[in-house]
């Protein structure tokens, strides 16, 4: 109970900041996914069918996963990076009588919320222009995606020694996932070795699960479990890094 209360306390400060700028945040965060939709969905993918569905129907769940990834990673990671290296106020959390677990959870929750906000807003657009289905498993996968990439953002911010490190992490990890993570094309026909490498990306599994639910196909439980394993692993490494860095 105390862990949850302390996590909320950590989250509370970030919520106050989000409250004062949520409209601007939503508009700027929706720009990229809407551009992807226009460029790939309506531009490049017009008239194309993948696996018996139109390209628009195919690409929307992928963009939702991508949007959740970016908003969660940046929502949790960038703020923590600024708190640690620029405002230097993260030490105040470390010197408070709360557990490392509460700090990690509290700092991740803002990423989860931001991820859910933007992906839900994009989902609303998707529902208006396609027959995307929303199911409980779709919601659960979206939540898990947001948690997984929030923990990844917190981990990157805890390891970063400069603001440049965060940018480097984005370029080397997030950008490849953006274009190779199963958002814009199906991985089914790729060579086996490449498919194996790409399946090391958590976004691939998030896209697979969301797409299966959105299109009414059988749910890929293996991918769901892999995504869950990524989330747990990021969380545990965050905890270990934080404990190692302080008493």
């Amino acid at each position: 109970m105390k862990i949850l209360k302390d996590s909320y306390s950590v989250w509370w400060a970030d919520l106050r900041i989000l409250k004062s700028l949520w409209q601007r945040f939503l508009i700027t965060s929706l720009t990229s996914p809407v551009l992807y939709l226009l460029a790939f969905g309506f531009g490049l993918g017009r008239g194309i069918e993948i696996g018996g569905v139109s390209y628009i129907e195919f690409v929307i769940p992928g963009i939702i996963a991508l949007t959740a990834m970016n908003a969660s990673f940046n929502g949790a990671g960038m703020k923590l990076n600024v708190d640690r290296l620029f405002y230097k106020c993260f030490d105040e959390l470390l010197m408070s009588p709360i557990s490392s677990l509460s700090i990690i959870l509290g700092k991740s929750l803002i990423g989860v919320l931001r991820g859910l906000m933007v992906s839900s807003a994009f989902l609303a657009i998707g529902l208006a222009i396609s027959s995307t289905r929303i199911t409980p498993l779709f919601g659960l996968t979206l939540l898990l995606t947001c948690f997984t990439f929030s923990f990844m953002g917190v981990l990157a911010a805890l390891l970063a020694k400069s603001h440049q490190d965060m940018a480097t992490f984005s370029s080397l990890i997030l950008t490849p996932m953006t274009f190779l993570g199963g958002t814009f094309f199906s991985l089914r026909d790729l060579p086996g070795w490449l498919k194996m490498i790409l399946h090391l990306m958590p976004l691939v599994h998030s896209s697979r699960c969301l797409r299966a639910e959105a299109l009414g196909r059988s749910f890929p439980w293996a991918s769901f479990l892999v995504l869950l394993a990524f989330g747990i692993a990021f969380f545990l490494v965050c905890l270990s890094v934080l404990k190692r860095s302080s008493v």
Partner: protein
Amino acid sequence: MIVTRNLTKVYGDIRAVEDLNLEVRPGEIFGFLGPNGAGKTTTIRILTTLTKPTSGNAWIGGFDVVSQPQEVKKMFGVVQQHLSLDRELTVWEVMELHARLHGLGSRERRKRIAELLDYVGLAKQAERRIGELSGGMKRRVMVARALIHHPRLLLLDEPTVGLDAQARRRIWELIRRLNSEGATIFLTTHYIEEAEALCHRVGIIHRGRLIALGSPLELRLRLGLAAVETLLDDRVHYRYFPSKEEATAYVQSLPPEVKMIVVRDSNLEDVFVELTGRKVEDGEDTEG
């Protein structure tokens, strides 16, 4: 209130703190005086549980900083040397966050925050964002924040660094008032006048080692309360005497070629120079 035994912190080849043995008594203002890089901030970081010592022990209020960090964290409030405030929050929000982290209930939070902002003279700034405040105001927010949970010990790392004379005096008044109300204060400083004006006892730290300990008067007495500065062969020479009378007698005995004779009270800078051969403001070669 604070006890350290053979406390040591090593970073690679650098011994930032070495065999530090210290006791800070309840109710006193204890000053840790030394140049930048002497090991003051490293000591504070160990005491505040942010850094693990390489060897040795430290206790706050009887709790070990390494094995009982949660108990230790409830004992102290800390004002770090650098500004450590989220500039996107308002003054009130910064205070509320800290109050929440220390488990204060809603009604108690409101009362305590209003009380403290009034105490540090920032009641009218409560709704302003931190980024809009002056350096002195930010420092006062940090002091108020450190007091939110009624800590028995206040750790101040260079509390007036970068402040103008007026803001510095205001912080000094605040520190004296807090101490008179019962708080034990451990502060680090490289300002001689700050240590002399505020501290009941001073520990002088040089290259990670405690080289002298006592009240400012005791430390000066070891050297002599009166100092004589003379200029001879383009060099300033210092001599110390137990009293002004003895210093004056010495001056009268000097040959006429000795120029620029100054007789004054000795100070902690003199003590530091005599012990180390360098001035406090010269800084050290090491980190810390």
